[in-house]
């Protein structure tokens, strides 16, 4: 059941990134805003990798869990945007 709930949140993340892609496709300004948001998120993601020990103690989770979250986040964005772009 735990796997099921993780899978559901994973799918929710994928759909959310598809939704962001959809918003970006509506207007060039929206595209710029989403691109800015994506860049900022990517920089934050990289910083989280570099400062994993500090961030994990800040969030009160283990380093392995943080790294798993970061990997899942990357997978979610790639799958979500990939599905949107390929269809």
């Amino acid at each position, binding site marked *: *059941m735990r796997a099921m709930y993780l899978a*559901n949140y994973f*799918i*929710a993340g994928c759909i*959310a990134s*598809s939704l962001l892609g*959809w918003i970006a496709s509506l207007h060039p300004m929206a595209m710029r805003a989403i691109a800015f948001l994506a860049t900022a998120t990517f920089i934050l993601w990289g910083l989280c990798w570099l400062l994993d020990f500090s961030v994990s103690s800040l969030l009160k989770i283990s380093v392995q869990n943080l790294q798993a979250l970061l990997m899942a986040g990357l997978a979610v964005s790639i799958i979500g945007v990939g599905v949107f772009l390929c269809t």
Partner: protein
Amino acid sequence: MYLKMFVLSGSALILWLAPLTALDKRIGWHKAIQGLSLGAAIACAVSAGNIARKLADENEIEEIKTRAITADVVDEIATSAYVSQSQRQQEAEIILASPMEIEAKREALEALCSENFQPETTANTSDKDARDLELWWKVEAAQIEGKTQTWIIENIFKMKGRKFAEGKAQLAELLRRFGDA
């Protein structure tokens, strides 16, 4: 609950993929439909995730309860064994301290020892009693939670289908033995 969760998960996947792949891009309103279905898909996926998390937590609590009941039974058996052992030790000490003949003391101690190591039937009976008591505690916990007889027979006794009648009889027996206490 399970059905709802699976239906919501399936709907989320369909609402995510179907409008993106199936909708003709020449139609004017395809963008609006895509947005709507993506929003609905997120709602479905999050609801399904919440239900699954709730079910996972409930399962965990059930497992903890079962472990606690088993630990209680084991503890009770260990305590009764310890009490019985110390009682016999006291009896033996009383026999040794009494002003009897050595032969009489020996006979009394032998009698005590033979009582201590009764044939296996006693052990088997007490094992069965312990199992019944453990089952009864689970049944009682389920009754307090408001579970039905059918649920108890199927989930606690693990007797479904043809074995259901046997389970019903077992439940009646347990209720007769422990229910009034």
